[in-house]
């Protein structure tokens, strides 16, 4: 019982942290700060995975998202100058108002819908895919096709990134 209550408390705290840091990520003016809030949101969701008993997913979340992806984003922010864009971002107040209004409406809708009947959680099914062994075997049996297609997708995305960022414009005769 005590463990359950402790879990529940941690869950509520971490969820609030995740939501708060996501919101701050959007509204903070400094891009670097917003990147750091994103790290916080990633780490909070890693803790949520841990609460569900998915150690492997939690580790992946931290290594891939909080580690690799964040590094890239921070590199990009540091390499390109965002001063003009920051000025532009301050001007857009109408969109902000619209965003707040829509968020509130959406929350109300959500509460209304959830109020009708509670969602039947699928915790039982989820906890069994937490460790590396199960994920690995699932990827090579049930989810083999999506796994393979995802690899082709990554190849296509990589080719595209190279194409778009290549320095010399293709085509000999132009410029």
């Amino acid at each position, binding site marked *: 019982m005590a463990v359950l209550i402790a879990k529940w408390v941690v869950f509520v705290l971490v969820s609030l942290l995740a939501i708060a840091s996501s919101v701050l990520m959007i509204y903070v003016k400094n891009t670097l700060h917003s990147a750091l809030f994103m790290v916080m949101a990633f780490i909070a969701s890693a803790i949520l995975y841990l609460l569900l008993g998915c150690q492997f997913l939690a580790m992946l979340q931290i290594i891939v998202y909080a580690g690799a992806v964040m590094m890239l984003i921070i590199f990009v922010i540091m390499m390109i100058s965002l001063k003009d864009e920051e000025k532009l971002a301050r001007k857009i107040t109408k969109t902000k108002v619209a965003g707040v209004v829509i968020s509130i409406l959406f929350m109300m809708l959500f509460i209304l819908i959830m109020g009708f009947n509670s969602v039947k959680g699928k915790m039982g099914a989820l906890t069994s895919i937490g460790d590396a062994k199960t994920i690995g075997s699932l990827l090579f049996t049930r989810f083999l096709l999506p796994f393979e*297609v995802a690899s082709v*997708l990554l190849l*296509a995305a990589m*080719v595209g990134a190279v194409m*778009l960022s290549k320095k010399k414009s293709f085509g000999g005769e132009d410029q």
Partner: protein
Amino acid sequence: MNLNQIMTLLPLIILASFAMGILLIGAFAKNAKGTSTIGYIALASMVFVFLSLFLFVGKGKMAFGSMMRMDVYSIFFNLVFVVIGVLTILASISYVKITGIHSGEYYALILFSMIGMMLMASSTNLVMLFISLEMMSIPIYIMAGFLRNDDRSIEASMKYFLLGAFASGFFLYGLTLIYISTGATSYQAIANFIAGTQRWNLSKLIWVGIAFITIGFGFKVAAFPFHAWTPDVYEGAPTSVTAYMATGVKAAAFAALVRIFFSVFSPFQHDWTSIMWLIAVLTMTVGNFTALVQKNVKRMLAYSSIAHAGYLLVAFVAGNAMGRSSILFYLLAYAFMNIGAFTILMVMAKKNDYHEDLDSFAGLGFKYPLTALAMSVFMFSMAGIPPTAGFIGKFYIFSAAVKSHDYWLAVIGVLNSAVSVYYYLRVVVYMYFKEPEEEIPTYRFSAPTVFSIVLAVWGVLQLGILPGDILNIARHSIMALM
């Protein structure tokens, strides 16, 4: 995994191996000649895929686990994608030369995104559906930005990418909500869960999930509240890519939409029909009325593409067997007429001067009578004038609406179609009845381009005069879905 399952993937394996092969060859063939050779290799892959589809005919349903299924429905759509691929690649070969896209990666990306389209039409699992949607979209985001000297192209790529990522977020959230409320990702299991549960015991999140999925699809087919990106992206992207995405993405999104909505969410048909009704009417009206004032033909075709999404949604709302099979027929017809019209625009494009405005068409009928004739056929077909494919398609769509006793929808659709005649025929009027203000430049016609135009004209007339066979196949394909 046995041999049968690998066989199911054969068309995809062919596409993927050709695409990777092209990437390798592309590294050594950087000049214009090498690029057109690669174009012919890509064309060969289409032939192989086309031939491989015959292996599935008459085999019934072949499934890859719960992930995807090759049934008659998938085969029909794969055929549509092959048609789109052949027409686009043929038209691209000289357009790529004119605009200076000397890179084999262009063709590789076309093939990559076609893998996604084919998977979208045949996937029977939410996980597969999402990955195939991304597989289709990401290469197209890239291809939209291929004219790197043109600011409009970069803008198109960026706009499409940002909004597309946003729409993907909605789509993924919708899929998650469906998973939360049913505990399954395969279509069959979800349908079983919904059938086995009392309507009041179902979580309300299913409805929210359906709404979110609708937003995702609405973005991809350019339906009304999610259409704002369309004109800019279609105008800015290279014309060959515009032709490819206007037809291919639309066909793939409708394929997945029809499959998931009519096989999984059919118990809720009554609920989503009312919303789709409004979306269909607004999509048609907004598309057609905005197209009226366009001076740029490429932009006009972009708005007309929104209007055509509206007609397709009319058939979707009608929801009966006739409506569903007319979606299939119309998508094929639309592929022929739309790519045909864009190919004419590609012929007229010069480097740094694309000749896309209406004035460029003035007097074209006198200097290039055959080109003007082909363009007229495509315009007549889009306007829905017999004896073209567009007429038969619209006829079946509106009769499906009448058959489901939705008379208002049919009336609004026909009125919209009448409005659209104005801007389609304006192009024809410019070509035949208007003196050119300046000298018409010399357009060069390469063999593949001419072949592409001839093929498109043939398709439009064949489907318009003898639509029986294709309609039968479309009807059978729909039966396989149930």
